[in-house]
């Protein structure tokens, strides 16, 4: 029984969350924050596969998110809604109830294919040179989409809200929250399966000594492709969910700044620590939202104390000064990230009883 208690707890928690949203115990704002949190968890844990476990430095994660977001958005608009450009829906909008996860997964698959853009050069090069390739890939993807006028180009693409509305017309439950929760659990579960298996540990071997890995029968090129495709595919799923949460995507929302956010979450949590990535995504999301409320208070306080000129207002712009500052300080005091390369179970051994580790049973 104890072995399954973690799964049970997760199920009860997710169900509780969805019920709470359905019966409006939590308002729309909180729901949005929770959805963002889920998306950030997918992003940071999937980037950790490449940057933490495999020890590469990919700084173009948002590019793959962009591919997933656009592919699944366009697909769901074509399939399920009447659109000005794409015409009548190809399928009955009601089907979206069942086919939506498929649409998101296809977005993920195409993003995984886009991951090859980075995976193939990684055979020959690594480290900082590969980092550049990932940055270039991010720029190429974004400006490629900006030049595709049919899906809106730089103006962005919308219409996904109608798909969600169609779902809600059919059955009134908070669909997006459900999908995000499922997507998050799915992603973390996939990554955990991968890095805990002997197969996936091949990428940890590559990180620690690539020559030894190749000599000890690890097919390093294949493992690199697997890691990059898994990572970018999950980023694509995160992108698809992101697009449907907001109902609108714009190429510039997936620029290098978004990639930087992903990087920050990985290194804040600790390289090669899955629970660290999840934890840091939660903290990071909460931090951003908390500052939304803290900054006006800070402004009032500063005016009250008369430490700043009367005419100057501390605005939300300061958010992006304070967050980097907090991160810099965190790194000064914990240069290995919150968790280092360890998992929660290493800090609190009693936790280990609650989840099964299939490789060591």
């Amino acid at each position, binding site marked *: 029984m104890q072995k399954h208690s973690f799964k049970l707890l997760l199920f009860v928690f997710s169900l509780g969350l969805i019920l709470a949203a359905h019966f409006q115990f939590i308002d729309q704002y909180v729901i949005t924050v929770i959805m963002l949190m889920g998306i950030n968890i997918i992003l940071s844990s999937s980037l950790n596969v490449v*940057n933490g476990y495999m020890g590469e*430095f990919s700084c173009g994660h948002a590019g793959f998110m962009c591919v997933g977001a656009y592919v699944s958005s366009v697909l769901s608009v074509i399939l399920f809604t009447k659109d000005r450009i794409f015409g009548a829906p190809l399928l009955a909008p009601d089907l979206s109830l069942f086919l939506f996860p498929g649409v998101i997964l296809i977005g993920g698959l195409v993003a995984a294919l886009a991951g090859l*853009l980075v995976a*193939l*050069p990684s055979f*020959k*090069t690594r480290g*900082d*040179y590969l*980092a*550049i*390739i990932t*940055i*270039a*890939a991010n*720029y*190429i993807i974004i*400006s*490629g989409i*900006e*030049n595709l006028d049919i899906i809106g180009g730089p103006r962005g693409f919308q219409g996904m809200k109608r798909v969600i509305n169609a779902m809600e017309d059919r059955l009134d439950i908070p669909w997006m929250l459900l999908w995000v929760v499922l997507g998050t659990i799915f992603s973390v579960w996939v990554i955990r399966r991968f890095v805990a298996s002997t197969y996936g540990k091949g990428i940890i071997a590559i990180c620690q000594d*690539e*020559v030894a890995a190749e000599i000890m029968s690890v097919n390093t090129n294949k493992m690199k492709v697997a890691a990059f495709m898994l990572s970018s595919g999950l980023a694509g799923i995160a992108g698809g969910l992101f697009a449907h949460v907001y109902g609108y995507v714009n190429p510039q929302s997936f620029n*290098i700044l978004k990639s*930087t956010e992903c*990087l*920050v979450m990985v*290194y804040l949590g600790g*390289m090669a620590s899955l629970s660290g990535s999840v934890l840091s995504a939660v903290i990071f999301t909460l931090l951003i939202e908390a500052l939304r409320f803290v900054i006006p208070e800070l402004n009032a306080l500063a005016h009250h104390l008369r430490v700043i000129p009367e005419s100057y207002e*501390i*605005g939300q*712009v*300061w958010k*992006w*000064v304070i*967050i*980097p*500052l907090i*991160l*810099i300080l965190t*790194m*000064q005091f914990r*240069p*290995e*990230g919150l968790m280092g390369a360890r998992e929660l179970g290493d800090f609190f051994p009693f936790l280990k009883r609650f989840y099964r580790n299939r490789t060591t049973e």
Partner: protein
Amino acid sequence: MEILVQNIFNALQWGSFYALIALGYTLVYGVLLLINFAHGDIFMVGAYIAFFLTTFFLGEYGVIAPGSLAGVTILMLAVPLTMILTSMVGVTLERVAYRPLRDKGAHRLYVVITALMCGLILENGNLALLGASRKKFPELLEKTVWTFGNVSVTNLKVMVIFAALLVFLFLQFVVTRTKTGMAMRAISYDKFAIPLMGIPINNIIVFTFILGSGFAGLAGLLFAMSYPILEPYMGALIGWKAFIAAVVGGIGDIRGAFLGGFLLAFVEIGVVAVFPSTLRDLMAFSVLLIILWWKPTGLFGIAKTTKI
């Protein structure tokens, strides 16, 4: 034909900017193996410092009588002052953010993330303090246009290109011919042996940051004179591009940074001349990606051989 020559001049000018910024990346990388992602924003800070200096000398703040200094004099004063002040910004980052992490033996990538964060602070701190309104850089030099046939070149353009060339020659001399330059190159090979040889490692690193940031300041000043609208995010894109240029040239190599900078500029101007300008970034980055695919360590970079 005229268009071609005109475009070559434009490319040379843009290449000079890329090159001046790229060498800051390359210098720091060559010594510390650190990608100083804040460098593009140091360039932006340089432009703003230049803006405040020139408006100060023009008498906007009432300390100096307006018009008491000629434009050329102001430029003569602004160049060294901008370089000094900007290099102080760079050195501050190194002392406050990077060195403590290095001393703690943090993973290299944590220093890189710190650099990224420092860049964000510079950008957004600027936005928060000075507001979103763009600054108009005053005109210091009377614009002279030299015309040869149908090709016209401004004195500013020529100045930018010459400045880049001079900086290149100066740095090439410093890095390859002086003792300090030798120490700089040595640090990247073996950080532990350097102090044993009696070389003050931290001084050399600070010197590297002074050089890199100083020339970023110069680039900022020249850029502000050529494109006189300043905004806090002006350093971000140009910084990333210059970094990519440095890598394509072979990061850690002065020649590589310059060659990469000019190469990027020529590709960009070339693309714009033939295709719609929205394709500029797409094509430029694709070309760079192909170059890196073909020569993974860049044009001048030396592949590190793994000893087995």
